[in-house]
């Protein structure tokens, strides 16, 4: 775990992205730069339409940049002109969920290492059962995702991502559709997994409380054009549980992030009003 734990330094340098459908020239990202240390939990917060997902898609290899570059452990992931290329070193947990509904949980979870030829079927299944049990999902291996609850699906999807031993885990508002109680349960499972084996995590949300609860570093982004407004180190000791939510330090950090983001949210809202008008 140490060797793998060392890897995962993500470096975003002057990243820019301009969408130009029919000459509209929408600047989604402008001069975004920040670095994450290996094994750091980095959460990006910002109002809707601030380019968070565009940034994540560029890291994941679904989208290309129009300026700047993104490096992972010194290797170039994205730069203008480079065709996007997804890879199992950067696993994505999608906002709307992407478990294959026509395959069983066990198939979903083991397919990565098996398709990559990294693990045999038997070994992958033993490992998968272990990880599923670890997040409280024993005995659901042969079910189809359609019969699972939202919180269970999210956990299965996180397990599927971790099975690939990625250098970076990318999560795009993964808990958005969950109710508050389920959300806090799944957050705690994620934190437990993270504390056991720290891994670079790039997590997108617009929920400030969630951001601070999970993160080592919170990156606040501005509304369009998406820029980095502020990066805030979250110096709350780990392991964390729900009790830190009411601690004095947490409340202070929350106020700091909220103040940074408030004006931006307002701008985004007014821009939306203008677009509608």
């Amino acid at each position, binding site marked *: 775990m140490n060797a793998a734990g060392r890897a995962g330094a993500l470096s975003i340098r002057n990243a820019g992205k301009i969408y130009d459908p029919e000459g509209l020239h929408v600047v989604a990202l402008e001069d975004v730069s920040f670095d994450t240390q290996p094994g750091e939990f980095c959460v990006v917060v910002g109002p809707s339409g601030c380019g968070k997902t565009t940034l994540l898609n560029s890291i994941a290899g679904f989208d290309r940049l129009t300026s700047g570059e993104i490096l992972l452990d010194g290797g170039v992931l994205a730069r203008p002109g480079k065709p996007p290329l997804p890879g199992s070193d950067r696993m994505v947990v999608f906002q709307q969920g992407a478990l294959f*509904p026509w*395959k069983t949980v066990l198939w979903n979870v083991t*397919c990565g290492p098996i398709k990559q030829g990294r693990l045999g079927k038997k070994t992958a299944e033993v490992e998968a059962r272990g990880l599923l049990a670890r997040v409280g999902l024993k005995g*659901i291996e042969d*079910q189809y995702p*359609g019969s699972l609850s939202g919180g269970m699906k999210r956990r299965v999807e996180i397990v599927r991502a971790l099975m690939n031993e990625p250098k970076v885990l990318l999560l795009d508002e993964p808990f958005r559709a969950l109710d508050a109680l389920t959300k806090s*349960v799944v957050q705690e499972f994620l934190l437990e997994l993270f504390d056991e084996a720290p891994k670079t995590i790039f997590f997108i949300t617009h929920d400030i409380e969630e951001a601070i609860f999970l993160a080592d570093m919170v990156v606040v982004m501005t509304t369009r054009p998406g820029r980095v407004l502020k990066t805030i180190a979250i110096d709350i000791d780990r392991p964390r549980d729900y009790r830190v939510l009411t601690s004095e330090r947490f409340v202070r950090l929350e106020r700091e992030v909220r103040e940074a983001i408030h004006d931006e949210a307002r701008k985004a809202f007014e821009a939306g009003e203008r677009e509608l008008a």
Partner: protein
Amino acid sequence: MAQVLAPVVKADVAFRTAAPWTIRIRRLLRSSRPYYTVLGIGLFFLSWYLLVDIFKVWRFRELPGLVASIREWVNPDPTYGVSLFTAEYYAHIWASVYRVVSAFVIATFLGIAIGVLMGWSRIFRGLTFPILEMLRPIPILAWIPLAILLLPGREAPIIGLTFLAAFFVTILNTLLGVRSIDEVYFRAARSLGFSETAILFDVIIPGAMPYIFVGLQIAMGACWFSLVASEIVSGQAGLGYKVWETYYYVQYETMVIVMATLGLLGYLSSALVRIAGNRLMRWRARLLAGV
């Protein structure tokens, strides 16, 4: 934490366990559905009996009666030579079933292959879609002369026409099915390191399956329709041919028997396609149950 979650997991496991068929039948009998089915069929036959046999209503009195038709059907020595006990009856059934099954199987394989290709490749779709949309609305009856010119013998044109009807439906539904798959599954597959072959067999085909099976059910109906049409025109055997022949020789009871047989076979074949679909798409059981 685990304590809170345990009951949720258990409930889901219980839900997924399929009930044995005895319990399922008992549950079905307790619902109102089978009784309405029986009642509906009963009312249908009763109206036939009243209109034709009893009241001999105008325009209906020429038709074969319910009693006469059933009597002919179960007669070991039928007046017009066709009943449950004659070899000729099964020869016609076999001729038609053979044609429908061959046409349907070929249409399924070719239709799915071409539909997947059209959904997968933008170039292939661009090349073929306009042609498909132009050929598809041409009624099967209009294809009959061309089929006779193009295909040798008597059997091939009939199978060809039957095939054609199912073919277009299968292509179109497969294409729609492939296009309906959410982009997110392709992204996930690429991230997970799937090869293009794996994407085809583990994402595209299962993802398009619900649409494909809707298409196959429609295709099965289309098969029977065009089979009968082409048998009437150019057949020497088969149920469609027999319907026309019995009309020509004024053997109306037999005509009704053959029509009823066509109906039963059509119903049965659609049910088989549906059962096969449910078997292959057990992952949709819960979605279909509306839970």
